[in-house]
């Protein structure tokens, strides 16, 4: 009897928590489908009397979403690919190749993780503007194509792969490069998938950096577009929510498909980091 009561209480608390998380999302979806005259009423209606899919059409036409989408996809894909390649190469060297200065270089890199990113913004901006990269894809992509955190995490995984495997491959005449891509990388797949997922999420959602290095509409990414959009459509909450939905949806789909990996990956990353 006491156990059932306890279980019920636990479920109740968990459900309240879940509602607390979900209500804003439900509210967003419901508002995005409302006709204008139902947006600003008290008490609020959760279910619109008529589903206004036109709101999405208005939102899509009001802003150059195609461009923003294209930019977000180009940036996210390039940054993720770039980071994974540089990370795999570097993690291999730091875990398998014995070379002079290796530990010193690695220690210096790890130490820089302490410095908050905001400290770097100004000099990076200056560097980029001297290179003439402001308001180009290069500024959005290249600085993010390497991450010490990722290198550290993958190096840890690479080190857990037994040396015997490496030595055996060497005797068979396998080159380092081939060994890395055909044996190490497949073995480290769970960590690599985690890194890819975390990078995609953070890149897709990044706000501060694109805000600073872009200034034309042609180069802006989705989160920025949304913030600009709110100023133009400050009162049309239904259109605004439709626009928000359009931006949030890709990540939610991505998340739903990969949620198992995301959750197990994050817990691993958190514990090791």
């Amino acid at each position, binding site marked *: 009897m006491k156990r059932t009561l306890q279980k019920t209480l636990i479920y109740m608390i968990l459900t309240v928590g879940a509602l607390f998380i979900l209500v804003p999302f439900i509210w967003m979806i419901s508002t995005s489908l409302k006709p204008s005259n139902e947006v600003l*009423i008290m008490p*609020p209606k959760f279910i619109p009397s008529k589903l206004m899919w036109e709101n999405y059409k208005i939102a899509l036409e009001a802003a150059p979403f195609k461009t923003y989408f294209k930019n977000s996809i180009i940036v996210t894909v390039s940054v993720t690919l770039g980071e994974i390649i540089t990370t795999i190469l570097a993690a291999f060297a730091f875990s398998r*190749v014995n*070379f002079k200065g290796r530990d010193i270089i690695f220690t210096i890199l790890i130490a820089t993780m302490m410095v908050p990113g905001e400290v770097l913004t100004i000099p990076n901006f200056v560097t980029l503007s001297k290179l003439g990269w402001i308001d180009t894809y290069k500024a959005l992509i290249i600085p993010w194509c390497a991450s010490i955190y990722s290198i550290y995490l993958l190096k840890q995984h690479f080190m857990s792969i037994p040396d015997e495997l490496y030595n055996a491959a060497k005797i068979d005449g396998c080159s380092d490069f081939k060994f890395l891509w055909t044996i190490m990388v497949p073995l480290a797949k769970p960590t690599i998938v985690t890194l890819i997922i975390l990078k995609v999420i953070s890149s897709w959602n990044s706000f501060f950096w694109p805000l600073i290095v872009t200034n034309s509409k042609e180069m802006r990414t989705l989160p920025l577009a949304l913030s600009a959009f709110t100023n133009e459509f400050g009162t049309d909450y239904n259109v605004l929510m439709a626009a928000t939905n359009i931006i949030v949806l890709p990540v939610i789909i991505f998340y739903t498909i990969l949620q198992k990996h995301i959750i197990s990956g994050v817990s691993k990353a958190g514990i090791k980091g």
Partner: protein
Amino acid sequence: MRVIDKLRKSNTFKGLLYILPATLILVAFKIYPIIKSFTMSFYTDFDYLSGEVYKRGFDNFQYVLSDPDFYLALKNTFYFVLGAVPLSIIVSLGFALLLNSNIKLNSFFRSIYFLPFVTSTAALAIIWRWIFNGDYGLANYLVMSLGGKKIKWLTDPNLTIPILVLFNVWKGMGYKIIIFLAGLQNIDKKYHLSAKIDGANKWNIFTNITLPLLSPTLFFVSITSVIGAFKIFDEVFVLYNTSTGPLKSGLTIVYYIFNKFYRHWQFSISSAAAFVLFIIILIFTLIQLKIGKTKSNY
């Protein structure tokens, strides 16, 4: 030729070649800017375009440390950190403990809690802005249906930090719950069983076994939360429609840095402020590391 061949065969050459792409980017966009930012904060007279520096000194730091706006930013940020960090840790730990007690639908709940973490802050802040709308928002509807009076959520300066704290807890709890769950699952069940046999009650088990064994995880979460909380910016920027909130009640340190840099083009003052932020974060991390060493079990 011989020398080149030898070099090509050496491990050093090979190692450097492998780390070259990553290191090149990290040196250009991480290590160089750290050094540059530090030296730049001492520039008092310089030409931004030519890069020439005419005078150096402590003026920027003096300016920042005597600017009432900076103190306001400090105050707001500290207020936020003090509210958000403990609250989010307690809430997340509480939910993690509940989820850890052999619950069906465990992964279903985890997935829901994790949802805000994957969604962009900019989009979420817009939904929240709508919820906190003074006339037609969901929050006021709730208050009124409970018999309260309408609250001016987003225009009352006293509510800015509490709203940001709430938003922060809401957004970050999924991530923290996952980390706590991983930590809880690493604790050997044997300890709990033997304590139970010895007649310990739930609270005793929690404070004497779970909490100490969880301390490395707790430690990791608190350090990353403090660092993250000190850098709050996006939330304010979007929630308050690119302003710093009513009566600058949402002016945080990073917002101050952003304003000096992006709106006033005062690079060196902005650099100095960024460095002050770095020192503050460093001090806090060191204090936490020190506490962690004495309190942590590992």
